């Protein structure tokens, strides 16, 4: 069911674009962009909802509640829920679009993996995923997996004359773009945000880019390209929403805590 609803349409969509452009790298870029564009309504809702939650942390009443009931977790939760209802904010509104997007992103990821078939069983599975009336496997295969200096089916390394090793440039770009995409959406700490929240956010900002970089370093460059394009589109989407914190990218600059607003 997962296969027929998610992966098979994705593979056919990706390979249809490939059949038009004739290059898997270009097809991955276009397909990722199109998919992200289709998911944009969900992403926009997620951005809006998370911004509302961020605004809430600057709310004077919210900060007062945090301070007043910091030793009574149950009461704190009750008061927070009251405030959510009062301000018409749903704490789950930012999670729901993410939850809906997650299987689609995983499916996209699996479709990419299966498309860059470089072994017999992978190729057999790929052929079986194609809609025969839509795409002709015998014409499509072998896929042109070369893109710039990369082979989309292999981990990327850039070999420079004089160097005895290859530089994982795409993995480096993945680390940088993941760092930027997570850092610029992290608001400066507000009075209402706990130390724990700030600490967890900081850890995510450090470990997530490293994890993505490690995946890009070890897995096929087609996936690394997908990560890069996804990150760039994400940065763009947040930028057009107007709520990005470019100042977070300046090294050594300490974030200035946002003052509480007078909203009640």
């Amino acid at each position: 069911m997962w296969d027929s609803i998610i992966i098979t349409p994705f593979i056919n969509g990706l390979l249809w674009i490939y059949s038009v452009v004739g290059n898997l790298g270009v097809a991955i870029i276009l397909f990722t962009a199109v998919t992200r564009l289709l998911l944009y309504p969900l992403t926009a809702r997620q951005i809006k909802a998370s911004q509302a939650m961020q605004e809430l942390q600057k709310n004077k009443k919210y900060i007062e509640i945090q301070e007043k009931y910091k030793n009574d977790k149950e009461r704190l939760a009750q008061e927070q829920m009251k405030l959510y209802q009062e301000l018409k904010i749903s704490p789950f509104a930012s999670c729901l679009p993410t939850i809906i997007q997650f299987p689609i992103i995983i499916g996209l990821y699996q479709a990419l993996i299966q498309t860059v078939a470089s072994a017999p069983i992978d190729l057999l599975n790929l052929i079986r995923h194609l809609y025969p009336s839509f795409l002709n496997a015998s014409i499509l295969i072998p896929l042109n997996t070369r893109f710039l200096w990369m082979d989309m089916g292999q981990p990327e390394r850039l070999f420079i004359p004089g160097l005895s090793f290859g530089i994982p440039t795409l993995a480096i770009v993945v680390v940088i773009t993941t760092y930027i995409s997570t850092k610029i959406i992290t608001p400066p700490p507000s009075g209402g945000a706990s130390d724990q929240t700030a600490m967890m956010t900081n850890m995510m900002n450090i470990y997530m880019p490293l994890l993505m970089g490690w995946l890009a370093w070890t897995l096929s460059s087609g996936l690394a390209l997908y990560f890069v394009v996804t990150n760039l589109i994400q940065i763009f989407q947040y930028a057009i929403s107007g709520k990005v914190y470019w100042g977070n990218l300046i090294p050594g600059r300490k974030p200035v805590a946002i003052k509480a607003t007078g909203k009640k």
Partner: protein
Amino acid sequence: MKINRILVVLSILVFGIILTSCTGVSATNSWAGVSANDTAVFFTNNTSIVALKADTGTQIWSYPEKPAASRIFFAAPAVAGDQVVVGDYSGLLVGLGVRDGKELWQFTGAKGRYVDSPLVVNNTIIAQNADANIYALNLTGNLQWTFKGTEAFWATPVSDGTTVFAPSLDHNLYAIDLANGTLKWKAVLDSSIVGRPYLAADGTIYLGSLGKTLYAIDSADGSIKWKQTLGGGIWSAPVALGDNLYVGDQSGKINVLKSADGSTVQTIDLASAVLGSGAVMNDQIVFGDEKGEIIVLTQEGQRAWTRTLTGKLYSNLVFASGHLYVLPTKGDKPLYAYDANGNENWDYTPSK
């Protein structure tokens, strides 16, 4: 505070594991290969090559001494006199002592996978690689020449002793001079060739394509003598017996065709993909299918006997010295040996 920190790190790790597990990077993305001489059988078992005594199935040796996930073996080893030549998915080709499995030499010149066995002809090792090159080596692993194609070479070529006939995923069959690696001719076919060709004594090359076409090609000049469209993609070499060719296809049929003109004699529907090459077993033909069935056919196309194993029979079947060797993919055991009447002689269980 510390617990929260651990939770964050753990959740990132879980995310990484989910993504990694979604990649489908499993050890099994091809099927194993087997070859045999009079006294021993050699087969690839994921991270190792195992040599067994042909009559009892007792292990003689295993290579490498310490298997590693970075070295995956699927291509059947090629037996060449006192050595066994085998390539892996990391692009390493090695020569091993046939008696003890000790490494004699390494060739590290390839950048891609060795998907099928190398060919050994006139003391030359022809090693086709997924990096779109064919490497010719002497029996000590020294490079003699390289032929560059445009796409991956998967299937083992054939040779008449002076010319190498190598099929490629780039839709071409290349005829290459064995002595110096120069191109003699190439035949442009309808789609990728992933199965081995079969070279008949009269100089005709029979091979099938993923585009469902079986070709008969003149080895002298690459001209197509005839071609025939089958029901599914062809993943392996045709088998010849008498005046007929027997070839399985992805739609689950065994096609019996006249060698002379490609006309259909009979079609046997197994309703399960037949990807591996069949084998001639005395005066019968044996095939394996995706649902794990071994089917033995008489020359008239009647079923002589069948056996069913767990797993999928994708690998080429090999019949040598009275033993039929069968390697199920994802089966209970990696190798079974039968006699010609379907009695199981032995099977192999890897030691833990």
